């Protein structure tokens, strides 16, 4: 069965979506990612969509679900590399992707994940509930 590869890098998981995903493939990715977060005790998920030429409401919803599920599993999600034409279209479509952390590229996304995880650790050490 066709699958989108998930790479492990330290305590983060990396996904690069490079194909025009059909709906079932998107749902498989959602399932795979959630089980990999638990299996690897991952603290962050970075999803690179820089080669995606289109994000419709289905894919947008899938990205939102991944971020929501990851949060429940104690992991942060960052979506990186959205093309400007995709961002313009998404807003006109009515999808503002609220609740999804984004970054311009992989480097900035990794920095955001690292910062978020460090903050969470420090807060935990201080005994503060986030």
């Amino acid at each position, binding site marked *: 069965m066709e699958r989108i590869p998930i790479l492990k890098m330290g305590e983060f998981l990396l996904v690069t979506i490079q194909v*025009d995903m*059909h709906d079932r493939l998107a749902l498989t990715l959602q399932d795979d990612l959630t089980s990999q977060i638990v299996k690897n005790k991952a603290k962050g998920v970075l999803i690179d969509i820089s080669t995606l030429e*289109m994000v*419709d*409401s289905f894919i947008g919803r899938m990205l939102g679900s991944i971020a929501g599920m990851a949060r429940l599993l104690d992991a942060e999600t960052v979506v990186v590399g959205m093309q400007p*034409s995709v961002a*313009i279209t998404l807003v006109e479509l*009515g999808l503002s992707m609220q609740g999804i952390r984004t970054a311009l590229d992989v480097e900035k996304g990794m920095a955001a994940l690292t910062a978020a995880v460090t903050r969470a650790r420090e807060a935990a050490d201080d005994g503060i509930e986030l």
Partner: protein
Amino acid sequence: MTVLNSESMELRSSEDIVMVRQAVRRKAVALGFGLVDQTKVVTASSELARNTIDYGGGGTVQLEVVENDRRSGLRLVFEDRGPGIPDIELALKDGYTTGHGMGLGLGGAKRLSHEFEVLSKPGEGTRISMLRWR
């Protein structure tokens, strides 16, 4: 308005949605659409193709390159023989859904189009036509 060329595609599975997106992209590029306009028409086609499959039980899409005396454009006509839409006004509202989506498909596709028309008869089917000029 003149139809310069026309192509019909079947809509049965989620793979067909991908095929439609790619065909629409090819035609938009051939027509000289800019990248943002390409993305808009491809995204709208994806929403409408999914609606045809999810709510209409499958159907067809007609891809037409059209022109009038001033400009050319891409018209997409989605047809199904499904249950139809009882209240079109309501179906066009953001957030309204009878399925498990977000209810953005129809209203969103309309916003991404220059001309948009929904014809539906309960029990007989739905025909949605969208046009984006270059």
